[in-house]
């Protein structure tokens, strides 16, 4: 890359960008903010009736939904550029629903955050749920240059986490490799008019023309969504931040990098507490790094962190200030029959997520998803193979670096189904109750709304049946690393390299 791009400058807008409604800050638009094509339904608009902050969707019956296989998943929307030539800045790096599911945030490699909002359900078309349209987009992080190390700090958004809503505004934390920011997203639909001393455009009136007194009044205006950074939590991480997690007390949060975990208070930016430090005294002895961390959803003193050696440690902050000694260590003994030089690499955990109930946690390693009961440390209670057919290809995947891909995983709202991504734009769902699983593909070929997705199958070896795909024809450049499930409904957001797909169950 040319050296000139090290000096941060605003990114160029994508040619596909429409004229956006007025924003407080005008960020270079991300391709995700393009208006939907006619096929996707709904015109690009940002208005939304006031006073319908939450709960204006019918609660779908989650308990009855059998899960991954009984649900019929339909294409709903796709966001992003159509062309195959992917701009590096448009690569989606994180996807997250907020606590009500009304808002869906994405972060990309260019440091931008795009927030989609679900429309209020259309009473006339009761057979479709509200669509997600762009609500706000802003530049969260800029590229920086670390002069001491002569290294660039990428602006890529590694994680976004929403705070639960406490007032009219929405808050989220977004982080790149080094800095975490708290963003406030607020709406403005009124503005004061009729100033005594100022013209409408802000210029001061000539004092001699002021002969009467008038008091400004608020008048309605077009809805404007503003994003402003409220806190910047910087300079606390030497290594690259891989996780942030908000505590259930909603006052503190943790941030984890490769070797350390810090605890922050949302109000305090100049200090953080280091609660885990696995950096060895001699860096030469480094053999293990932290790969993910999360607070327990209910216990505000409990958190877990996973490692590159496939272990998960649960720590209790009440035990000591520095939680280097775990309360529990979750590790599955290695299967000696499957041992290879790649065993350690594929056991490295790329994501850890607590269930909503807090009773279980899920880990994702390269080939599988494991569900752990917090009360049992020596093995997971459930293991699901995501793409076992890759086991014989590990050498090639090591060669092309795919073996280091960090897949994420997510639970559905009732903790009955888990979902994770794979290659070839496939993603997989596992129903914990029925033990059935399904493989689906995120592609524009099925992009008629309410088209039911056809299950896909990969043929591991031998005769390839019709409609099956052989392992050798999988596209390893098309990987789904980030997925998210609506907290209450059967709506999922699946990110391919630069597109965001939204699927719903068939109503």
């Amino acid at each position, binding site marked *: *890359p040319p050296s000139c791009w090290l000096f941060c400058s605003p990114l160029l807008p994508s040619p596909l960008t429409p004229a956006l409604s007025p924003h407080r800050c005008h960020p270079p638009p991300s391709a995700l903010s393009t208006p939907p094509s006619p096929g996707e339904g709904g015109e690009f608009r940002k208005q939304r009736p006031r006073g319908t902050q939450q709960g204006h969707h019918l609660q779908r019956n989650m308990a009855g939904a059998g899960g991954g296989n009984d649900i019929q998943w339909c294409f709903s929307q796709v966001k992003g550029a159509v062309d195959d030539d992917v701009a590096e800045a448009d690569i989606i790096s994180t996807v997250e629903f907020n606590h009500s599911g009304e808002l869906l945030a994405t972060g990309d490699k260019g440091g931008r955050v795009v927030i989609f909002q679900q429309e209020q359900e259309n009473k006339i078309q009761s057979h479709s749920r509200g669509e997600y349209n762009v609500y706000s987009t802003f530049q969260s992080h800029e590229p920086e240059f670390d002069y001491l190390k002569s290294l*660039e700090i990428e602006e890529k958004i590694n994680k976004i986490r929403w705070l639960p809503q406490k007032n009219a505004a929405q808050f989220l934390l977004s982080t790149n490799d080094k800095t975490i920011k708290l963003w406030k997203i607020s709406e403005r639909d009124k503005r004061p008019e009729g100033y005594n001393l100022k013209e409408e455009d802000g210029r001061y009136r000539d004092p001699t023309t002021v002969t009467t007194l008038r008091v400004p009044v608020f008048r309605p205006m077009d809805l404007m969504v503003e994003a402003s950074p409220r806190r910047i939590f910087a300079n606390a991480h030497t290594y*690259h931040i891989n996780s942030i997690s908000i505590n259930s007390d909603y006052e503190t949060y943790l941030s984890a990098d490769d070797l350390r975990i810090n605890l922050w208070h949302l109000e305090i930016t100049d200090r953080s507490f280091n609660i885990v430090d696995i950096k060895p005294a001699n860096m*030469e002895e480094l053999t293990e790094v932290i790969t993910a961390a999360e607070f327990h959803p209910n216990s505000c003193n409990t958190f877990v962190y996973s490692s590159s050696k496939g272990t998960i440690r649960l720590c209790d902050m009440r035990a000591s200030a520095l939680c280097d000694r775990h309360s529990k260590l979750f590790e599955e003994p290695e299967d000696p029959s499957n041992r290879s030089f*790649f065993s*350690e*690499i594929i056991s490295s955990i790329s994501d850890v997520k607590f269930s909503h109930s807090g009773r279980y946690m899920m880990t994702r390693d390269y080939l599988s998803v494991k569900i752990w009961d917090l009360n049992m440390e020596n093995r997971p209670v459930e293991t699901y193979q995501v793409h076992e057919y890759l086991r014989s290809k590990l*050498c090639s995947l090591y060669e092309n670096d795919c073996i*280091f891909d960090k897949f994420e995983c997510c639970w559905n709202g009732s903790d009955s189904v888990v979902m994770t991504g794979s290659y070839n734009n496939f993603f997989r769902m596992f129903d914990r109750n029925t033990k059935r699983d399904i493989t689906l593909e995120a592609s524009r070929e099925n992009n008629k709304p309410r088209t039911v997705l056809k299950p896909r199958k990969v043929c591991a070896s031998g005769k390839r049946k019709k409609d099956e795909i052989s392992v050798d024809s999988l596209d390893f450049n098309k990987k789904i690393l980030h997925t998210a499930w609506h907290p209450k409904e059967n709506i999922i957001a699946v990110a391919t390299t630069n597109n965001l797909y939204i699927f719903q169950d068939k109503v």
Partner: protein
Amino acid sequence: MNCGESARPGSPWFGGHPDGERAQCPCLAPPTAWDPQSCLLQFLYGQPVVWRLLCSDPGLNPAWPACPLTSGGFEQNAMTREELMGLNSAGPSGWLWSRRSCVIPAAFFTQNCVGMMFARGLKRKSAEEPEDVEGCSAGAQAMPSYSLQRQSLLDMSLVKLQLCHMLVEPNLCRSVLIANTVRQIQEEMTRDGTWRAVAPQAAGRAPLDRLVATDILCRSVREQEGECPAPDMGDGQPDLVPGLAVAPAAQAPRSPQSSLWEGDSSRESRGGFQKSLDQIFETLESKTSGSVEELFADVDSSYYDLDAVLTGMVGSTSSGPGSGLQAFASAATSPPSSSCRSDLGELDHAVEILVET
């Protein structure tokens, strides 16, 4: 115009773009065309790489005039034409391929790391011998032996560790996982007795900022005889040194060698390899200020200064990661061992030059 003039650093001699431009070095007979086979692999372990064609070593092909660039710091070792077989068929065997502007002996391609990808990525003439294809891309060829596979994996891992682009801080998790894999292989090879343990380098060598493991690994045992251990091996454990010089035969006494790896004694007792791994992590932790100049250097000219690379001149201007190895390139002109593992000697040279600053 003789070759020397055109071959100055930054000259268009480094051209030869795969999509049609011709190499402009007059000593290179103009290729008739760039066909897909004359442009090698696009990816080397996940990193995109553009390969260019350089002049061949004149010793191999008398029809080609001498080119000082190739005869510079790059020792002409006893490569025969037969040893170069396996190179793609577009050019005469003996052509050298360069990653950007580093010279790599063609034999390197018959080795594990690149040969693997090579076999997979390109169409090869059926006449070519597949026997030098190694590693996991065996495909239609015979399955390579376990030790060859293991060696391939080791080489590939070491190259991966070196190839991280240092503009952005490399991914620590990935580096740790690769380093652990290398350690595993090393341990296993030590247990098997096939490990060519290496002596830490002689005191007079230039300090190594970057991974040197491959270089150390590839030295033959014979070269290490008589070399003294590194200076920081203060309590000097002389009993280990003879252990290091033990012949690679399987009957090598295990204990001194294994103690090299498993002993709890000083860090140095774990051998030069561990030291190099350490250096990786130190490099990952902090970059020297000299690298700032590298970042601002024009990428396509003096930054990849082939002359400097070959003559080890880069070290003076930048103390960046690669400079130690450049110093090596000039210093390490020892002839390859004529042992049965001659590929290690060639790999030695190859990887020294392969590593970019």
